[in-house]
Structure formats: C-alpha cells, structure tokens
C-alpha cells in the first residue's frame, strides 16, 4: 500500500508529494467520521473549516517534508482563525504554541537521523497534541471555537500531531531509536494523564472539562506509544505489539467519542446559552436524545467496561505490567509508579465523566435556561448519532478492530507480536443478559410492578416554596462542590491553592516575564534619540572594524 502522487503545486520547482500507506490510511479513517460529523453539526458553510480539514488531510497524506509542514501549519493557522472567532483571548497563546511546534518540526525533518531529531519531533508534535508540560494552552483554546471545530480540534488535530510523532519516532527515525525515547514519552504521557484527568474533575465549564479529558487521552496514547518505542528498542516483541495496539485503539476510540461529546456540548450551549456545569442540571428531561448520546460518550471517556474506551485502557494496563516485568529496579519502580498513575488517572476520568453527566444532565435544573432547554437539532443529532453508531464496533468487537490495525502495527514495529486480547465484551454482555433475565424473573415472580411519582424524600426536609419551581438550586451539589474533596486532597497538592496549571506557573509565566523584560529593552532601544541611534551604528561599526582588524591581523 505505498501509493505516491506528485503535485505540480507547492515548493518552487519541486511541487508537493502525497503518499498513502497503512498508517496514514488509519489516521485518515479516524479523521473522516468526525469531519462528516462536524460538517453535519453546522460547520459545512465555513471556508476556514474546510481549510482546516484540508490542512489535516495534507499533513496525514504528506509524502515529503514540505507537504507535511504545509499541512501542519495550515491546520494550525485555520484553527487559530476559528479559535479567534470564538474567543480572542486564548488565540494568541494558541498561535504561539502552534508556531512553536512548527518551528520544532521543521528542523527535525531535516536533521540527520538522531536523538536530537527525536527530541525536536517530540517537542513539536507534543506541543501540538497537548502533551504535558506543553499542554496548558489546550484547555483554553479547544473550548473557544464553535462546537464542530472544537470536536475536530480535539478529535482530529491532536491525532495529526500524534501521527507525526508516530511516523517519525517509529518509521523515519527508527534506525537511531533508543530505549530512553520511549521512557521520555511515557513520562510525558503519564504527566498528561495525571494533570488532564485531575483538571477534568476540577473544571467547571463543560467544554473545558472535555478539553482536559483530551489532554488525558493524549497522555494515554503517548504512554502506549512510549511503551511500544521502549519495547521496540529493547526488542520485546509482545510488549511492543500490545502497547501499539493500546495506543492506536485509544486513538480510534478517542477520535469517535470526543467529537461526539464536543458536538453535544455545543448543543447544550445552543439550547441553554451556557456550558457552565454550575448553571446546568436536569437536561436529561428536556433533551433526552442528547442526554442518551452524551451518556454514551461519557461512558467512553471514563473507560468503563462495554464502552469503546475500555479495550484500549485494558491493553494499556497490560502493556504497563509487561513493561514493569522487564528491566532493572529503576524501571520496576518507575513502571509501577506508572501503573499507579494510570489507575488514579482512570478513576479521575471516571469521576469527571460522572460529574459531567450527573451534574449536567441529571438532578434538578440550576437555571431557568437549563429547565427550558429543547432537544437536539437535526444536524447535530445526525452527527452525534453517526459517531455513536461507529462507537459500537469498537466497544463490542475490539478484537476485530485490532485485526484491522495489524498492518499498521506491522509497519511500525515489524517484529511486534501481541498476545490475543483477553477482554471479551460479548461474553460480559451475555452474562449481564443472563443476570438481567434472572432479575426480571425474580421481579415478575415475586415483585410488585409499577412506579409512583412522589416528592423526593430528601432526608425529610420540606418541599421548596412555590416560587422556586425546581427547588432552590443551591440545595443540590454544585460542580465546584462535587469536585471539592478531590480538590482538597489532590488539587491543592498538585496545582497549588490558586489551581493554576503547574505548566502555566512554571513554564508560561516565567517566559511571559522574560518577554516583558525584553520588550522593555526593545522599547528602550526604540526610544533612543537620534544621537543614540547614531551611536549604536557607530559602536557596531567600530566593533566590526575591530573584529576585522584583529581577525586579519591574527
């Protein structure tokens, strides 16, 4: 499957080259449904949106460095414009990170095969994918544009960045591969999992929660990739196969459910005018279809069994255990720490998903807008339904999907040999069906049918007054309140009392201060009088002359 096409358009005298192989095909397949969904969700009239899609497609199909960077940067630029139309504040940060990743990638593509090239690729692709510690732009930028674009940014764009990482780390730079590459990726991925999941529990805005969850999933994928890279370098066939399966399957699943959730969040915004969980609640009553689809998406996000998110997590845990079984004492400690992080991250994701559904869609409305919400419009409904239907095979027959992924894995790690999947959702479904049958039998044989609607008991508190149709919103747990225990025990420790992302505190803020200082310096230079300007010229001239004189004298 190595098809190349040359285009007469592009670099002067050389044009562009497109190339399709199993890996690009996989990512194109990941991209396709969400593009259709985003178009259905209301973006099809936007020129910039199609430019964005074009950029991603070009980056995925690139056959040469120019096309890759062109597509990559086109994607960044178009999405920047879309972000800016939504919210100008994060747009600049976003642009900075996007160009930073371009600036890291271009050198990496031209450097000889070496560890330096890998580091640059990891920095560039990692920054674009939202890999910690370069992730802090993502929860700001992804929620800003319209839902369809957010969906594509979270579901597609980060995948394109990961595609670049995979393409170079596993294929193009393979001859120079070192075990520590994998370890570095695992470390970054684990950090992303932890921070992404933790912030997903703490954030209040629905779309920000989803964006944080994207950081977490990018972390999961990267952990898988890192383990595979490590195993490939140390020659562990089973582990590399297992880890690659985990990473790729996670990418597939995430590419389906994250757009679904984002489009849903857009509909929430459309129907209620807000995405703050503190103002939502009880949406399941007014928006049952949306609620059901969002429930599906949230189940995936939390990696619960029988959802599409579980198989990748399952594989990833196994890969991490496999990795811990190899190597020395440091690897053992490190990988058992990784397992702990993955476990904690998984549980945090679960908490985030429960919070999203429980506070947004269940319970009582927290505002009149939430109470009066109307259900999905046709286009988004179709879009979400499409993605939901596509989730089913991933959820129920992951083995089949893994078979399909085999050519990609062979391309990335030719010696990989993964053990068969020991997670059988169909068996679980069968057992659950049996249990349900039994329960139904007991119920019909001995139970009483029927339901009666009454006022909630609520521990014996009285009914709310008549002017509060849904009761006092303050008497139910708020999003902030729900997160409070987690915040108290983990948030303060990891994020500090201000809850600022550590990446912002330790990375962005110092950089920003440095920039301000340099700007002041530049302003001082600019304010120079004519005399001072002449003096600059003079000084530099004399310096050059001296350099010349000394250089020629010596």
């Amino acid at each position, binding site marked *: 499957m190595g098809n190349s096409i040359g285009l007469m358009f592009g670099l002067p005298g050389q044009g562009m080259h497109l190339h399709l192989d199993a890996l690009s095909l996989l990512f194109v397949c990941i991209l396709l449904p969400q593009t259709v969904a985003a178009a259905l969700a209301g973006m099809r009239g936007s020129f910039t949106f199609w430019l964005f899609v074009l950029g991603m497609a070009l980056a995925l199909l690139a056959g040469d460095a120019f096309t890759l960077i062109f597509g990559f940067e086109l994607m960044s630029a178009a999405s920047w414009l879309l972000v800016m139309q939504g919210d100008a504040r994060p747009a600049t940060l976003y642009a900075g990170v996007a160009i930073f990743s371009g600036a890291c990638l271009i050198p990496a593509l031209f450097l000889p095969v070496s560890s330096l090239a890998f580091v640059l690729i990891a920095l560039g692709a990692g920054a674009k994918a939202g890999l910690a510690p370069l992730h802090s732009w993502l929860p700001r930028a992804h929620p800003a544009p319209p839902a369809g674009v957010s969906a594509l940014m979270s579901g597609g764009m980060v995948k394109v960045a990961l595609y670049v990482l995979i393409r170079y780390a596993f294929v193009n730079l393979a001859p120079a591969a070192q075990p520590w590459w994998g370890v570095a990726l695992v470390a970054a991925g684990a950090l992303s999992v932890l921070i992404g999941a933790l912030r997903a*529990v703490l954030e209040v805005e629905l779309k920000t929660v989803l964006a944080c969850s994207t950081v977490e999933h990018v972390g999961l994928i990267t952990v898988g990739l890192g383990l595979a890279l490590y195993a490939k370098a140390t020659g562990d066939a089973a582990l590399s196969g297992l880890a690659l399966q985990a990473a790729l399957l996670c990418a597939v699943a995430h590419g389906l459910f994250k757009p679904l959730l984002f489009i849903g969040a857009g509909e929430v915004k459309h129907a209620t005018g807000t995405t703050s969980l503190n103002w939502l609640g009880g949406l*399941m009553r007014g928006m*049952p279809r949306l*609620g059901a689809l969002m429930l599906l998406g949230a189940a995936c996000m*939390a*990696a*619960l*069994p*029988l959802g599409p998110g*579980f198989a990748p997590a*399952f594989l990833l845990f*196994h890969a991490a*255990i496999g990795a811990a*079984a190899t190597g020395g*004492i440091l690897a*053992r*400690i490190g*990988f*058992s720490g990784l397992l*702990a*992080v993955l476990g904690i991250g*998984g549980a*945090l994701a*679960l*908490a985030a998903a*429960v*919070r999203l559904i*429980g*506070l947004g869609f*269940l*319970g009582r409305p927290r505002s009149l807008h939430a109470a009066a919400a109307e259900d999905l419009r046709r286009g988004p409904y179709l879009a979400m339904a499409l993605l939901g239907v596509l989730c089913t095979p991933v959820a129920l027959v992951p083995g089949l999907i893994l078979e399909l992924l085999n050519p990609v894995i062979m391309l990335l790690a030719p010696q990989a040999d993964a053990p068969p999947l*020991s*997670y059988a959702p169909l*068996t*679980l479904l069968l057992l*659950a069906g049996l*249990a349900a049958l039994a*329960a139904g039998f*007991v*119920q019909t044989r*001995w*139970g*009483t049918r029927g*339901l*009666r609607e*009454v006022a*909630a*008991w*609520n*521990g014996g*508190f009285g009914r709310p007054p008549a002017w509060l149709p*849904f*009761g006092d919103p303050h*008497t*139910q747990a708020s999003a902030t*309140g*729900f*997160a409070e225990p*987690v915040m108290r*025990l983990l948030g303060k420790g990891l994020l500090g009392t201000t809850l600022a992302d550590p990446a912002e505190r330790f990375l962005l803020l110092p950089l920003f201060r440095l920039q301000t200082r340099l700007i002041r310096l530049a302003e001082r230079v600019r304010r120079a009088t004519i005399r001072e300007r002449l003096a600059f010229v003079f000084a530099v001239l004399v310096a050059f002359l001296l350099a010349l004189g000394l250089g020629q004298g010596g």
Partner: protein
Amino acid sequence: MLGFAFAFIATVLHIVLCFVGAPLVTGIINKLRAWALGRRGPPLLQPYLHLARLLRKITLVPDTATDLFTFWPLGAFLALAVATMLIPGFTTGMLTADAGDYVTIIGLFALARSATMLGGLETGFGFGGAGAAREALFGIFAEGALLVLLLAFALLAQTTSVDGIATAFRTAHIGISVSLGFALAAMLAVALTETGRIPTDNPSGHLELGMVHEAMVLEYSGRLLALLDYGGMLRLLAWMNLIGTIFLPFGMAQATEIFSWPGGLALWAGKLLVMAVALSIFEVSRAKMRVFRVPEFLGAALLLGMLAGVFLFVAARIGA
C-alpha cells in the same frame, strides 16, 4: 467434552451458590458483629426477608428525577453480578475464567460504582451529591492501589486473569513472602473501602452527614432499593471471593475433576466463614474514620502495593 460439561456444571453451580448465598454471608456477618458486641443480632436469614419485603413494596420515584432513575440500580447490579460470576469461588477452571481478567473485574467494579454515583446525583439533593463526591474521591485511590497490586500478582503468576493467578498460587511454590503480606494489607484496605465497611464507611449507619454509600441510595425504595442492596451483598461476596482466591488458594477444586468439588466447596465455606469472623471482629474493634482520612488510608495502601512490587524484585534478585 466431559471436561467441558463438568466445567459448565461447576460454573452454573458457582453462579447459583453465589447468587443464592450472598445475602446469607451478609446475614452471618451481621450476626457475628452483633455477637461481638454482645447482642443477640438479627436472624441469619434476615437479609432474604429484607429483600423480599422490598420487592413487594411499591417503588417510589421522586418528581425531580429523570427517566434514568430506574436504570442506575439495574446497571450497578448487572455489573456486580457479572463480576461475581467471573471471580472464582470454590473452584478454578470455570468457563468464565477466560473473560475473568483482573483488569476487567476492576472495570466492572468501577462501572457499578459510577452507576451508584449517578443514582445518587439523580434526584438533585444534597446528600446524594455529597455521597457521590466522596465515593468518587475514594475510588481514585482505590483504583490506583488495585492496579499496582495487580503488578505484584502478575509478576508472580505470569498472568493477569484471576483464575490464572489462583492456579499459579496454588500449584507453584510461592511461599509466604513479604511482598504478598504487603499486598494482602493493601488489598484488604481497598476491599473495606469498596464494600463500604468500617473504617471508611458504616454499612449500618444512618447519620446522613457521615454516610457515603447509604447517602447515594437515600431516594431509592421498593424493588430498586432491593436491587441496590442485593448488589451490595454480591459485592461483599465477590470481594471475599477475590481475596480468598488470591491469598488463600489452597484446597480449591478443579472444575474438570468432579471429585475435588466437595473438598473445594467445604473449604470455600470455611474460608468465607473465617473472613466473615475476621471482618466482624475488625469492624467492631475500629471506629469509623473521618472522610478526609480515608484517602490517606488508601494512599498508604497504594504505597504498600508499590512496595510489594518492588520487594518482589528484590527477592527475585536475592533468590537468583
């Protein structure tokens, strides 16, 4: 063919015994606890009566709840039921052994937990929300600890399926090692939290502010509450089975060898009884913790789990 038939029968036997016996285990524990406190205690079969009474009652639905109100108990029950079916009890080599991966079981417990949490949030009143938030917090540490523990088991047994671990621990000469001791302590801490026992939660407490599990099911009644309560009983049994299988695998039957069953069954009953006694003594001798102490408790479990993995490595090195 015959082996398959035996395995099938063993599986069915295991499932039936578990489903029928789960309330009995709860009843025994309640009785033992009462005895330990010097009371007479409820009759052993009281949990059955409790469930039957609930089944016959009309089920009330709060007017603030959504249509999914009835779905959550069912979801929690089904997840726990499947988990119970997957964890071996008296025998290894059941038909469900292949699907019974440790990670799957952790996932199923998480599924049950999330369904319960959503049920707690359903009506939109303070207690449910508080309970769910606490449950989420406990889950975070519990799941990390469980996964780290799995590492220790997987390294010893070279497999991650519970059945495989049990077989390996029973047949291979593992001996009593420091790491397994650590692992047991960690596992017990997680099990106590997961099943909602003292010191992290009080199964019989009814002070709303201190409740975790009970707070979430506050609005449920009738057959929905029966499902939830029955699910809780199943969970307790499932955890006892899990601990018994991994740490006390001696004497477990082989599904394909019918003559080993009686011994296995008897030993199983014995193990459950021992665990019940231990649990009730532990429960009456400890006070309930403050909510925010629990994560420390579980964090210690997590570290113990990691230590188990590390010590395993050291031991292997020394042994080699």
